[in-house]
């Protein structure tokens, strides 16, 4: 499968973007693990779609932008990015913190998305069902909470072959920076007021959860659905944790296919 990698100019600097496949266009926003190359879910979807997957600043090859301090900063950036990608009004998939940002953007810019498959979005807070504080866990435990499948987890933790010492250093720093960036979006709590804005979202939203998600428990699916005007909740995917698209790539791709918009 041909993969095109290009740099998309934005006010936050060039954004590394992967494009693959042919067919209806789907924008794909990665989760807290970042994006070094197209994932299995993106490749599955690209069999019959044109997948456009930008790496957000600080999540891999796209450098961090120190002016992105608040959720508001990120929403303004994401709005610009959808313009620069030419994907305003398209179908999108987004995971975890980026699903929260996508919902924030959909609330203030209703035309931004035609539809959104939101995979385990952060952004709400129930004190009686708070979920695990991911960043108070050891790195090993963080990985176990993000991904349920041990093989996937091992693959994520495995160092790419052929990296020299400089490459290993850059990879280590990059992994720290993406944890830093993801954490900053949910620190100290993920609630930035999204609940008060979700009623403005007009795009159709499909809510997807992993049944083993302990970071944002599956019960949050109904909470989001109650606040969104047009949302459906897919039954939680068994065997998947928070990063559903990594644990169950085919299942998520199938849900996106079913989402005809």
């Amino acid at each position, binding site marked *: 499968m041909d993969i095109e990698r290009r740099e998309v100019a934005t006010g936050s600097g060039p954004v590394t973007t992967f494009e693959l496949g042919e067919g209806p266009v789907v924008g794909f926003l990665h989760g807290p693990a970042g994006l070094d190359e197209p994932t299995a879910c993106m490749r599955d979807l690209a069999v019959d779609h044109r997948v456009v997957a930008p790496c957000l600043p600080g999540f891999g090859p796209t450098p961090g932008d120190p002016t992105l*301090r608040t959720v508001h900063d990120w929403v303004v950036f994401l709005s610009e990015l959808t313009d620069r990608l030419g994907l305003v009004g398209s179908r999108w998939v987004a995971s975890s913190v980026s699903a929260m940002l996508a919902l924030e953007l959909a609330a203030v810019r209703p035309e931004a998305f035609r539809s959104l498959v939101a995979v385990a979005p952060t952004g709400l807070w129930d004190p009686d069902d708070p979920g695990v504080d991911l960043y108070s866990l050891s790195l090993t435990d963080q990985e176990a909470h993000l991904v349920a499948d041990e093989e996937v987890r091992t693959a994520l933790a495995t160092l790419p072959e052929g990296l020299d010492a400089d490459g290993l250093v850059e990879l*280590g720093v990059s992994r*720290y*920076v993406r944890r*830093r960036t993801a954490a*900053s979006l949910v*620190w100290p709590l993920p609630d930035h007021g999204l609940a008060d804005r979700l009623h403005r979202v007009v795009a159709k939203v499909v809510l997807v959860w992993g049944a083993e998600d302990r970071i944002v428990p599956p019960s949050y699916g109904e909470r989001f659905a109650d606040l969104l005007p047009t949302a459906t909740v897919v039954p939680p995917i068994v065997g998947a944790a928070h990063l559903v698209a990594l644990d169950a790539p085919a299942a998520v791709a199938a849900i996106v296919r079913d989402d005809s918009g």
Partner: protein
Amino acid sequence: MPYPDLPDGFADQHRSVWVDIDPGLYDPEVGHRAYHDYLDELEYAASVGFDGICVNEHHANGYGLMPSPNLMAATLARSTDDAAIVVMGDSLALYNPPLRVAEELAMVDGLSGGRLVAGFPVGTPMDTCFAYGMNPLTLRERYHEAHDLVVRAWTAEEPFAFNGTYTKLRYVNPWPRPVQQPHPPIWIPGGGSVETWEWCAEMDYVYSYLSYFGYKAGQATMRGFWQRMADLGREPNPFQAGFIQFVGVADTDAEARRLYREPAEYFFNRCLHLYPPFADPPGYQTEATVRAGVEGMVARAAARSADRKKAPTGSSTDGSFTFDEMVERGYVVIGSPTSVAEQLVNVATTLNVGNLMLLLQFGNMDRDLTMFNTDLVAREVLPEIRGLFEDEWEHRWWPTPMGAGRRRSVGGVR
């Protein structure tokens, strides 16, 4: 300023001394006595001739009962006459607006007649990111902005507007203003990052390395600091550096080991019982520090070394330290006055440090033993370590109080 009654088996039964320590362990009556004991001990140190007395800031912490160092400093400003009041210090990013720090420290400087040292730590990740919810990503930017506001507030000759990223004030005009002009000396507690060394050099501030792991472990950091200062063309004035050291003195080495074993073990094996992830939230370390750490790991891996850079751990299976290890590794300097004086001269000269901050109370050491320790150090150790550097170097970072004739007596009326 540890809570003195953490139970036996604390480390086995509780996850951490910091952040999520069990509130049920805190007895307010024990706290009441502890505060007065600690203030007595600091006042006693001032009365027997110590140059300064220190207070610090911690939150949700079983070994640091001072969420507000300024409250304690204000009390000490009234109850002491000559010692410097060293606030080590206010974690600037935690104050909203940070102008509050400029105001409160100006009050302490005023109360004390100009005896304040203003320490400005970034603050530990446990205090700032977990207990106070600061976003690790923006903590340091917030800290530096707060520093700029405080210093400008102290020195501006007219009210001004402050348009920061995190603090916006139309009118900045603190009353009172500090006695010391242009402002009290500023000391920066640090943990060994290159950025902090460079900032201290640039701002002409004291760099204080506050490690609980003693002078042997501190050598690499202080060497790095002085090397960086040399690279930047700065003179190696030892008074621009501070270092903290646990000290226990008795008439003989054997007696010192007998007296200080329990307090040391209490401190290192209960008060430092920290759940490790609380010490490293993503974003707390600067990218440069992370890069240096990763480079070190890669280099060691390449050399097939089994050593890994990490905080010192004890030899027992649960990571705790034996007293012998604490002494051997230099975490605690223990012994007779002669022995301790020799060791402290060695610490000061080896690290090139002109400001030694001696922890004479640690762990669950009671008031009587603390005062015994304090008294013996004052009488028999201080004379041996004072004046090591005065002939060659000027201490430009020490408070400059009002003259005795201008200062009002601080005696009360009751």
